[in-house]
């Protein structure tokens, strides 16, 4: 048969070849993986196909790299692992992708069919193990089902609310002769957006005097950034983004007011508390946003738009719930704001009130801007790397500082593990981003805890010649846990002080460049040096060990219990 994408002719003969063919037919460019016994037939077939495989140093990194690639491109990321420990190592990556609705296909080798169920060498029930955090999973026992199953896996991964799909393939199925089974793409019928619901949502927006738009990851997944901006500009409604919604709306836009929640902006949390309408699009009212859900936005009606109907009413009961794609819905609502009567700016007093409430926070940031610390480091990266930079953050205090202070202006330029909060995510995820956009600057911001969780990937980065720059905010602690211990456990810093390597020597051992930056050093000069030095560079910023992220709403509490910087 002819493969139209690559204009080559071949006849698949084995299961492995059918797998490669399916990957080609899905337009896969990169995959991230690690070979092993049960996936060897696939790796044997691989060199005969124009598919680029990136050999990672740990399977978890393969899943995160595929995740980063998928988040950056909107395409399905692919990772590959062998059975047993290879499969168990990708589990964290699958859970990360599931929590953040990232389209991923994970291919795992399995022991041969005759060996299954017999506790064979490197046998694990990867299907069973991953059931709770995959969108779907397949164990392919019929070689003739391999090609259509692979295609179906991609379709499931990217359709509706995206997510990870596992395809587990026994070794003998990879070896087996198989016929080419054509694949008839199932026509996905998008859930229609009901006219009355759009009308009701528009009516609530028009009537509200203290409305807020809450934009989440669904806006990015649906590529609805333009529609979001049009709606905000036509209505004058201030825009808040969730952590994963950051960069769905330019932060230098006059209508952008920040992000909410446990470590979000105090003024945004207060605005939500006073709001009379939350217009939530592509977000799921995570507990890190709502705190005590029954005290969240007590005065607000809620319009909730989400492609996943099971999200509507899960945490917050919507006044109007719309289970549909964000882009289609926003377009439908925009159609209700085309009249001259909608030119009146009803939200000006509300915006002025919010702006006034933001002043103390803004003043504090301005005061700290020139001090050695997270704000200055973020400023230096932004100004040096330029507006095209994509920032991949790990999990912890630095993640919050980056989200608060970086000022993301480029669409989909903020990539982080939100739902699962996976330490060790950033470095491998940045590999996926760098493969997706090799010409654009990619920076990792990580803590000294998380960076050590997948630091072996420096070898992959070096081998692949990836131009990833890394800023470690090194406070010698698991900083966020230490902060909680400070606030809620009477400063008993139990097992949070942490050491790491000398990163200058460490990077040198990998054949890379690194530099230590201490208080009083030239932050901007170090960042400039990193940006100008070819290849991967690590900057180890030694920061105040007891620096905290403010504000903080204690877990399960409300804006009224918010801890603010004195």
């Amino acid at each position, binding site marked *: 048969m002819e493969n139209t994408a690559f204009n080559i002719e071949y006849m698949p003969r084995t299961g492995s070849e059918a797998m490669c063919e399916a990957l080609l037919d899905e337009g896969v460019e990169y995959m991230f993986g690690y070979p092993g016994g049960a996936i060897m037939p696939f790796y044997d077939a691989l060199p005969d196909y124009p598919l680029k495989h990136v050999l990672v140093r740990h399977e978890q990194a393969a899943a995160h790299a595929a995740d980063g690639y998928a988040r950056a491109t909107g395409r399905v990321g692919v990772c590959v692992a062998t059975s047993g420990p290879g499969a168990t190592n990708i589990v964290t990556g699958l859970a990360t992708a599931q929590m953040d609705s990232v389209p991923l296909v994970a291919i795992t080798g399995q022991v041969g069919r005759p060996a299954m169920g017999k506790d064979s060498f490197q046998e694990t029930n990867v299907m069973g193990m991953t*059931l*709770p955090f995959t*969108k*779907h*999973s397949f*164990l392919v026992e019929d070689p003739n089902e391999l090609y259509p199953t692979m295609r179906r896996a991609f379709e499931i991964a990217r359709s509706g609310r995206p997510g990870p799909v596992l395809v587990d393939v026994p070794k003998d199925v990879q070896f087996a002769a198989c016929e080419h089974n054509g694949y008839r793409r199932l026509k996905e019928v998008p859930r229609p957006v009901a006219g009355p619901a759009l009308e009701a949502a528009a009516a609530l927006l028009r009537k509200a005097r203290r409305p807020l738009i809450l934009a989440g990851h669904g806006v990015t997944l649906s590529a609805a950034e333009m529609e979001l901006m049009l709606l905000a500009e036509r209505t004058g409604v201030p825009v808040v983004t969730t952590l994963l919604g950051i960069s769905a709306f330019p932060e230098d836009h006059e209508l952008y007011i920040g992000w909410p929640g446990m470590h979000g902006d105090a003024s945004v949390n207060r605005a939500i508390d006073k709001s009379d309408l939350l217009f939530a699009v592509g977000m799921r009212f995570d507990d890190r946003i709502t705190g005590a859900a029954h005290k969240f936005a007590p005065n607000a009606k809620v319009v909730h738009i989400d492609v*996943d*109907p*099971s999200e*509507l009413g899960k945490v917050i009961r919507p006044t109007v719930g719309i289970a549909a794609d964000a882009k289609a819905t926003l377009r439908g609502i925009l159609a209700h704001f085309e009249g001259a009567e909608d030119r009146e700016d009803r939200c000006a007093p509300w915006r002025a009130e919010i702006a006034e409430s933001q002043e103390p926070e803004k003043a504090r940031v301005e005061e700290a801007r020139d001090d050695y610390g997270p704000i200055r480091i973020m400023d230096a990266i932004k100004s040096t790397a330029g507006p095209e930079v994509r920032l991949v953050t790990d999990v912890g205090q630095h993640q919050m500082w980056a989200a608060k202070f970086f000022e993301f202006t480029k669409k989909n330029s903020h990539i982080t593990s939100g739902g699962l909060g996976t330490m060790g995510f950033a470095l491998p995820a940045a590999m996926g981003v760098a493969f997706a956009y090799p010409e654009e600057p990619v920076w990792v911001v990580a803590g000294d805890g998380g960076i050590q969780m997948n630091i072996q990937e420096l070898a992959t980065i070096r081998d692949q010649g990836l131009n990833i720059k890394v800023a470690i905010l090194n406070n010698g602690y698991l900083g966020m846990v230490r902060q909680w211990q400070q606030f809620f456990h009477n400063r008993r810093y139990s097992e949070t002080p942490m050491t790491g390597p000398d990163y200058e020597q460490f990077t040198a051992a990998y054949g890379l460049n690194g530099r230590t930056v201490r208080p009083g050093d030239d932050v901007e000069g170090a960042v400039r040096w990193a940006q100008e030095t070819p290849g991967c560079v690590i900057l180890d910023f030694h920061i105040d060990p007891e620096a905290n992220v403010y504000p903080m709403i204690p877990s399960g509490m409300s804006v009224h219990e918010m801890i603010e910087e004195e």
Partner: protein
Amino acid sequence: MTPEAAQGATSTTLYPMEARISGGMLALVRFLMTLQNKRMPVARFTVGRDRDALRITLLLDCPPEQARRYTELLAGLEDVEGIQPSADTMEVALLKTRGDGWRESAAGVEVHEEGGTVVASGEPGVLDAWLAGIGDDVEDLVRLGPVARPGNGGD
């Protein structure tokens, strides 16, 4: 019987729903895992074969609005071919009895004997009442369901 009106043995308002799933044991495990993972308040769970698929009847102990959300969530699973509130749910009891008290069947309960086993079926609450009525006559009892009446099947 409307879903909201279904009464279980504990007199809690129960929401019956019925699903057909394909994919065999793996699909069933995924279905069960989802019930557990999302902490759905499952009061009763019954599974049976339905030609090439499995037919599951669930009673959820929660308000209808929440049950509808759970229905949407389960409907999103790839293996679920159909899921809907079950408007016609029944329970089956297989009994070994001492006497003939079971012959005095109550309204809404169908009873017959086959091979020495008494087979009774009816709506869950009604069957409960009937079983309580024959009380000490019962030597052994196996209860099946609630299940959907054949011909409904979540299609």
